[in-house]
């Protein structure tokens, strides 16, 4: 990306499922594991709630990246919501390719309630990756003036 601003701080929207990944993130907190503050979590009951259009909305509204975190397959509190998320995510990736948006900006990760350290690692890596990719600049890159 050409215009890397000085000290660019990525803005990442996170959709965390309440039973597994939100609890995992809480565990990172109780364990006082440090990670960058660029992620802003929204708690959903299940990662299956995450409509791909909400992800696009987040990016179009100014987010530089989106993290969807759910339970490991087989562990979904609602049996199979995370599997549906996975299916939608695959389609979402194809959509992002068509928009010319780097796949690294939108991630689907499985984080269990006991994986505080893993959550922190995921956030750290995602923040750094997006920092090197630079700001998304949706308006400039994607929006076509009608």
């Amino acid at each position: 990306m050409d215009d890397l601003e000085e000290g660019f701080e990525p803005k990442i929207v996170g959709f965390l499922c309440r039973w597994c990944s939100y609890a995992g993130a809480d565990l990172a907190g109780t364990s006082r594991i440090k990670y960058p503050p660029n992620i802003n979590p929204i708690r959903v009951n299940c990662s299956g709630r995450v409509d791909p259009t909400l992800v696009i909305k987040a990016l179009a509204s100014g987010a530089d990246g989106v993290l969807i975190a759910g339970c490991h397959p087989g562990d979904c509190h609602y049996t199979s919501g995370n599997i549906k998320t996975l299916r939608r995510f695959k389609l979402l990736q194809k959509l992002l390719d068509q928009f010319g948006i780097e796949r690294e900006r939108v991630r689907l990760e499985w984080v269990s309630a006991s994986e505080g350290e893993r959550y922190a690692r995921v956030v750290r890596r995602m923040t750094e990756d997006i920092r090197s990719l630079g700001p998304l600049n949706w308006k400039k890159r994607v929006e076509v003036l009608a």
Partner: protein
Amino acid sequence: MKRVGVFVCHCGLNIAGNVNIKEVVDKASKQQDVVFAVDHKYLCSEPGQTLIKDSIRQHNLDAIVVAACSPAMHEATFKTIAQLSGLNRYNCEIANIREQSSWVHEDLGKATAKAHITVHQGIQKVRLNEPLQPITVPVTRKVLVIGGGIAGIRAALDVANGGYQVYLVEKSGTIGGRMAQLSETFPTLDCSTCILGPLMVEVFRHPNIKLLRLSKVEEVKGYIGNFKVRVRQEPAYVDEVNCNACGECAKACPAQVPNEFDFGLTWRKAIYTPFAQAVPPAYVLDANNCLGLLPQACGECKKACDKFGTSCIDLDAWPRTHELEVGAIIVSTGYELYDATKLTEYGYGIFPDVMTSMEFERMLSASGPTTGEIKRPSDGQTPKEIVFIQCAGQREPETALPYCSKICCMYTARHAMMFRHKVPEGQAYVFYMDIRAGGKGYEEFVKRCQEEKGLLYLRGRVAKVYEEDGKLIVKGVDTLSGKTVQINADLVVLAVGMVPSSESHNLASKLKASLDANGFFSEAHPKLRPLESPTAGIFLAGAGQSPKDIPETVAQASGAAGKALDLLSSPTLEREPTVAHVVGELCSGCSMCIPLCPYDALSLSSEKLAEVSEALCEGCGTCIASCPSGALTLRNLTDEQMVAMIEAIVE
């Protein structure tokens, strides 16, 4: 327009140490619809809660945001305070600025900036929350217990003693299950039938228990508190009430069949009683093996009964359908044995003197095929050298069952002991990998067996069993001495694994209860919720949920009964109202949402529009994400709210 109050907690220094509380309060007070914002050292404490209550009253608040620790900690507390202060409890949102802000970010400035966003998110959400009321469903105060083994019996008795009507559905002609087939039970060597019998009689006599034998569940509709179950009962052709079990019918019957109670080691007639202490104490006609009922080919049993008995045989009987309405269902379908013919290395089914543990058990029993004497099936001689193989077809993920069945080490020890008592000049060998004797008195019992004369424990596996000159050559290894071992045995007993009942697949799909990878009924949480299925209103007891011994089965059955009693304790039930909802005008009836629901809560109405059963919906939101028309919303987590929260983040 709502009047929102924001309360920011210091949590001592937990939050205040890394977040500028004053700044958060200040910024929050300037947000849209916020009319009051204040901080406190410990909001969850008594003074903190009083502050919230007073503020709600003083400032006429109709919604609050509590910026503090994770909702996992005190969401319920704060929601209750809100409710007690006259607010709808769903007008209270928690902003997690501790676990996901102050505790994890290093820079105070950045942690504070994030806290602003988190609080703003909470405000945006609570502004759009609807004042929901819990969904009340009536409760039918009756319980269905599926499976009449010791688990079902215990559960049925506990619920019935608790004062409620129980239907106990059992597929065979009698209750008692596997325990009735046992000779003794470890570690006390109690006679199994002696301790089981009185419980079976109690079930039979209990005014609150309706026992439906020869019955299977055909269809289950409804939801927790309101199940409608159709049960099909096959005819016994014998009147349960009037039959006095004289046995004249069986004497007259010409048709012989292998007796499944004895695993085919003996014969029974087509009209029979499963075992002497069967409950109900009435005979059963096995229509599949009778010479013919339509048209009647024989009729000798009826003639005998009319002449010598109580005239209680009706060869024209038909199956009956029972439509039951219950509030809770307890599943106690028990287990069967793994098919030992698959263990080709041991030759079960090829060599007659290779038996399963249950067949050996029947042989030990005084009511069994040999009246308690141990004999070789091939020639009826008393075996002098007997080999027990533990973990047969178990703990073998590549070729057989991956799991351990828990009880085999114990019953093999018991079998070996009983053999030694009955054949004092005999020699028993037990091939084992590990000894699992975790229950009360178990280790002591196994130790006794291991020290017994004429009983040798060999740590190692058996590679092959084959026949030579009338003996079974058992080739194994003793890893503790590092030597291969060959035993020329007279009898080999395989401790095969427990597998779930063959009915469980069918039943699980009817109940919409999930099964685990091995076919056992899944529990809601392996540690903390072992008695309930994830499907609301369905409880689990016994080996149908996982392999276990009798004390654990009884404990679990009483636990499941307790859960059912809890459910039934009030005439109505409250469910979380944060469920899916269809806006009819927007629905096109495309049905994309319907197959996605793991709880079958979505269906098409008579107008061919999607419809949510609020009692079945668990609020996951998977269907919402699939709706192309935006007709589906999740109450209090609508797309509008999601967008508002996203915007609060990116601004």
